[in-house]
């Protein structure tokens, strides 16, 4: 039980009666890097928000450090979130603050450390992502990869036990991708944290993940270590891992028969 820092049990979630998740079960053991993969729009990001307590499940529960998230009060959720760090899809840096102040933000908000100590902390974190020299820049002056790294430094500023990544590779060039990929693994091991990575970049993720969940149509369709999944013959996994256009996930959005639509005329 306590080996898993996060557990998701029979979780269902949706908006206005339309379910996005239909009974999901996942466990996230301490110290591991776990990937949640799936096509665009399969509700992967929503899962992270459910773990962070920003959304309430319709059914089932999410447990973080043996506490059920949606049963917590506001203060309880804030207490849980202080154990978490989250990297948003495009970094979500505060555009009115400098790189330094962005990383200092959580430290300033949650501690009463003296300025000199905050400075040391921030520079340490920025050094870990290789951007100590950029601490005076504003977020608008950074490239996509750099701002992702600053956001990562901010996410780990308070040494969280859980680090969540929402599409950390989206829109990055191969070099930046490799950099972020290495950082995820290195920070995880250095901090003794647990990383939950939501992504659809198979190759990067398979190289660093300890365990992978495949999500499709609101369900976990496959899980296992990267090695197991590479050799999997399950059609969905095969299509995803090898990036084939058509398969169990159809190329076409559900539509009426093309021929009948073409000849339907204007009598509607």
């Amino acid at each position: 039980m306590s080996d898993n820092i996060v557990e998701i049990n029979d979780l269902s979630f949706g908006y206005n009666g339309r379910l996005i998740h239909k009974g999901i079960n996942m466990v996230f053991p301490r110290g591991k890097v776990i990937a949640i993969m799936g096509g665009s729009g399969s509700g992967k990001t929503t899962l992270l928000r459910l773990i962070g307590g920003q959304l309430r499940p319709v059914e089932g529960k999410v447990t973080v450090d043996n506490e059920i998230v949606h049963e917590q009060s506001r203060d309880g959720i804030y207490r849980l979130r202080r154990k978490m760090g989250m990297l948003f899809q495009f970094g979500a840096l505060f555009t009115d603050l400098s790189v330094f102040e962005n990383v200092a933000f959580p430290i300033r908000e949650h501690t009463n450390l003296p300025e000199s100590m905050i400075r040391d902390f921030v520079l340490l974190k920025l050094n870990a992502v290789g951007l100590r020299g950029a601490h005076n820049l504003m977020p608008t002056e950074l490239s996509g990869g750099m701002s992702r790294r600053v956001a990562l430094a901010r996410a780990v500023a308070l040494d969280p036990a859980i680090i969540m990544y929402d599409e950390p590779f989206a829109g990055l060039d191969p070099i930046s991708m490799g950099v972020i990929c290495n950082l995820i693994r290195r920070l995880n091991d250095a901090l003794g944290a647990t990383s939950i990575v939501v992504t659809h970049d198979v190759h990067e993720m398979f190289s660093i993940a300890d365990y992978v969940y495949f999500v499709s149509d609101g369900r976990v369709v496959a899980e296992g270590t990267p090695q197991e999944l590479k050799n999997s013959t399950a059609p969905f996994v095969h299509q995803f891992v090898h990036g084939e256009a058509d398969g169990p996930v159809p190329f076409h959005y559900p539509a009426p028969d093309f021929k009948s639509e073409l000849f339907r005329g204007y009598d509607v």
Partner: protein
Amino acid sequence: MFDRIGKALSGTGHRIIDRIWRFGSAARMFVYVLLSSADSFKRIRIVTKEIYSTGVLSLVIILVSAFFVGMVLALQGYNTLQKYGSSEAIGVLVALALVRELGPVVTALLFAGRAGTAITAEIGLMKTTEQLSAMEMMAVSPISRVIAPRFWAGVISMPILAALFSMVGILGGYLVAVPIIGVDSGAFWSQMQANVDFRDDIVNGIIKSVVFGVACSMIALFEGYDAPPTAEGVSRATTRTVVNSSLAVLGLDFILTSFMIHT
């Protein structure tokens, strides 16, 4: 035919219900803002920063407009008053018009256009780029860290801007009335002093501008916070800020004035 009428009616109904819904959410947010205000006053620095961007940066437009409004008032007033041989009353006219109505109202309208839209766009963009979400995930409440300081900055800035508007407007009126038209300077000021009451006119004007400050800041913040996280959503929210703020200011002005004029 009936189908179409039915559709139009239900459309209107939906829109009205939506309005009421949004008003309710705005009211709830207002309560949250008030509840978390103690937190933001502990970090007065943040409020100072927001006063700078809402108040100080609005100074130029407010002062220039005030100057012109005052000059126009003096010209128009003189044109009418001289027919009745009481052109010395021009000072009273300019001062009362500015202190009672134009100062608070025009300041609030300009504020909605200058600072209100900036606030809405900023909050909307912070939402779109997930900065508010990020803040929440860092266990920092966006209401107390982002919304409340901007709210109080607006409430503090508005009466200051309105007072400056009135003062500069009166100076503008003076410049037209005394050196250009040739009204006696002493009569200008003394008539003004004899007829402008501190409590009934000046304090009431300040009360008005405080109320407008609450309304304009709250509308701007709510529209930004409530905006759909898309480029179109933010731009529409910005438009709504101007429209709703203007309507709220003019409506509230009528209500407040009817309370204040009781004799």
